[in-house]
């Protein structure tokens, strides 16, 4: 493997997981966010070799047995997306909010997705989605 191959290019081009997207290549937009050993990370500023041996989960891995993850379901129900380009990263980042705090306030939700830009929604329906997912999980 080319040492400088970025993790996002490895996922998209080598493994064929095109769910995570490339929005800026500078860690600023969060469209490439994936889960690495349980932590949401931006895969555009990490080399693939740095992820050697790690457990990676992309948006494609969230649904289990044909059933959507609660966060995916909540984004759908609450219209938490429009063009959908930021969505795979946004859902991974949102999932992490609830992993850390099952009942976040609006402020905590907004802080939790600060590293993920959405240009379509104004974030309001995303906030609603995270709240709905928290509620669905019994918070």
């Amino acid at each position, binding site marked *: 493997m080319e040492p400088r191959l970025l993790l996002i290019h490895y996922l998209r081009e080598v493994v064929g997981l095109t769910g995570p997207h490339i929005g800026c290549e500078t860690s600023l937009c969060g469209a490439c966010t994936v889960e690495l050993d349980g932590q949401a990370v931006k895969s555009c500023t990490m080399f693939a070799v740095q992820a050697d041996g790690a457990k990676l989960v992309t948006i494609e891995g969230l649904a289990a047995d044909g059933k959507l993850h609660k966060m995916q379901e909540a984004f759908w129900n609450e219209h938490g997306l429009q063009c959908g380009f930021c969505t795979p990263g946004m859902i991974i980042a949102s999932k992490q909010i609830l992993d850390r705090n099952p009942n976040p306030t609006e402020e905590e939700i907004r802080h939790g997705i600060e590293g993920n830009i959405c*240009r379509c929604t104004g974030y309001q329906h995303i906030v609603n989605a995270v709240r709905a997912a928290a509620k669905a999980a019994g918070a």
Partner: protein
Amino acid sequence: MATITKPETLLGKRIRRREDPRLITGTATYVDDIKMPGMYYAAILRSPHAAANIRSLNVQPALARKGVLTVFTGKDTEHAGSVPCGAALPGLRVPHHHLLALDRVYFVGHPLAVVVATDRYIARDAAELIEVDYDVLSAVADPEKALAAGAPAVHPQWPDNTAFTFHQEGGEVDKAFAEADVIVKQRITSQRLIPMAMETRGVVADWRAAERALTLYTSTQAPHLVRTLVAQVLGLEDNRLRVVAPEVGGGFGSKIDTYAEEILMAFVAMKIRKPVKWIGSRREDFLCTIHGRGHVDYYELAARRDGEITAIKLKIIQDLGAFLSLLTPAIPTLSVLMMPGLYRTKNIRADVVGAFTNCMATDAYRGAGRPEATHGIERMVDILAAELKMDPAEVRLKNFIHNEEFPFPTATGLVYDSGDYAAPLRKAMDMVDYGKFRQEQARARQEGKLLGIGMSTYGEICAFGPSPATPAGGWESSQVKVEPSGKVTVATGISPHGQGEETTFAQITADELGIGLDDVIVVHGDTSLVPYGIGTFGSRSTAVGGTALYFALQELKTKLKKWGVTLLESEDVTLADGRCTCNKSGKSVSFQEIAFAAYRAMKVPAGAEPGLVSTYFWEPPNFTFPFGAHIVVTEIDRDTGEVFIRRYVAIDDCGKILNPLIVDGQVHGGVAQGIGQALWEQAVYDDNGQLITGELMDYAVAKAPMMPWIESGHTVTPSPVNPLGVKGVGEAGTIGASPAVVNSVVDALSHLGVRHIDMPLTPEKIWNLVSAGGGK
């Protein structure tokens, strides 16, 4: 045949989107997700200078790099046509825009060469190996400086840097100004913005020489326009050119244009006879995707002492950039059309000067000319109110067009379709408890707090539009295909990329045909699948595309009824709830039975043909004119100059609402971009024409914690222009937001003598103003 007859109307229901399952599972296909056997990758070498002559260009070091197939330069593409500008104005100077620079560059990011390689890393590496010897020239990046005597000429053949002038006048302006009790004047800017769709532009081109067939996958809002224009520029046969807009990650107007890169990739694929992909980096996208706004406006308002506005004068200096993109010169003319806002005055005079600068072209960005006009008139109304010591709401209510005056012909040549302009304002004032807020504000000021309230009552021109009034035809198309099973495929000429028409159009279809939502699919964005269409922009998709669908469905229903008559052997039938029923015998046939019969065709009804397909091209008789009122409460931190939005109330009237969930989403997103312009965003070029906000690090796109909670509501005034009664909502939030925010902040600082502040209202700007008025 699991179709259940639908018991009630789907229109107006909060239905979650049908496009979402693929988007939330990461299985949608955007351009960069497309991979083809033997595909090459392209990287583009771009100018680091805003103005320079090219002394020499040496591509040999790039060609020598392992993995590089070839390099194309301006000499290779010299004989292709110009990157297209589709707007026409009398006397317009249109510079020839080569696909690749020939001997001179005109803006930072101007493409010089295309490197084609086996991998995107190699392509980018090799582009950096190309040696260019530049003779750097003076540049001009500010439109007012460009028009000043002695400014560097952007195009040497036009030393005055003027692309066009445009004048429009109505009524008796000079008389109104001569008789005015009060005249207020203000210079107001609407700064350059970067549209910043999350997905950068990108193209995959695939050429099949044996068929002379080219397929372009491109991130666009208008695939048919791309097809027509790419075919024209390269001299291709348009019936052998297929353009596909796959999943598109946002556009906001910036992907209406046909860009150099789309034409270039078509050119490259035909030369190398292999598929080729180019995906813009974020920096390329900031440099080389159109920008929005870029106005300097000089306003004068004449009024009577009682607050009645009697005339408006406006001079617009439009920063065009170096080249004219698809609609560049048309955008400020939209500002002129919208300059009276919601107000009755028939005396208007507008003069536009389009200035060339050594920058990226400006063009349609969410609102396109209308946010600029609304910002201007809504600021001026507040300035007038301050001058007359009247409440801004009172001045607005005094000047609104009255309900009985619709359809209302404006001095700018439009006919406003319908309106009840006071209703959203009163509703918004009730929601914020306007009277009580003023008391609270008075108390807060005594405590030294800076609290403000501001409003905008905006109108917009939507549903573009009657073809004679548009550069490329303003109609829209729709095709409804009933399959033998009774399942329905809708093909639409619009090209949604987040607006949700796969859902709303299915709602319209299911409603009209009396079938289930799940029996309908909506396809779009592929010139080989859908009839010729214009695309998605200008809040037109539902108002024009949805109406084309509505009429296609009426035609289809006529056909269904003919088949029903034949099958039931009765002339007296009713089509309702997914069945055709004989009114005498009560016998009926289902929609599915009719569909099957139409393809089986045992007995074709008189005047009908086998099959069940209807296609409709709808030409709108007028634009639609949504309106609304936004009220914003702000608080300013004296110590930092930071603006905090305490309340944001948005009451929009977009006519009938087909899906409130989607409409709310459109309003929120629009407001976010309007607040972004008001408070944070600005594309800054320095005096040398360097874009110094060239990355997300420097260009302040709103993040979640920066955005307030938006309290949205609606009034509903149906449009008489289309049978759905819809007006359009894509741009409303953006148009209403920026003046409401700025008016609120100016209100917070008004007791310090502040009368106007130009956007963006950065903490530095506000802190300086507060400090200058300090101690008061």
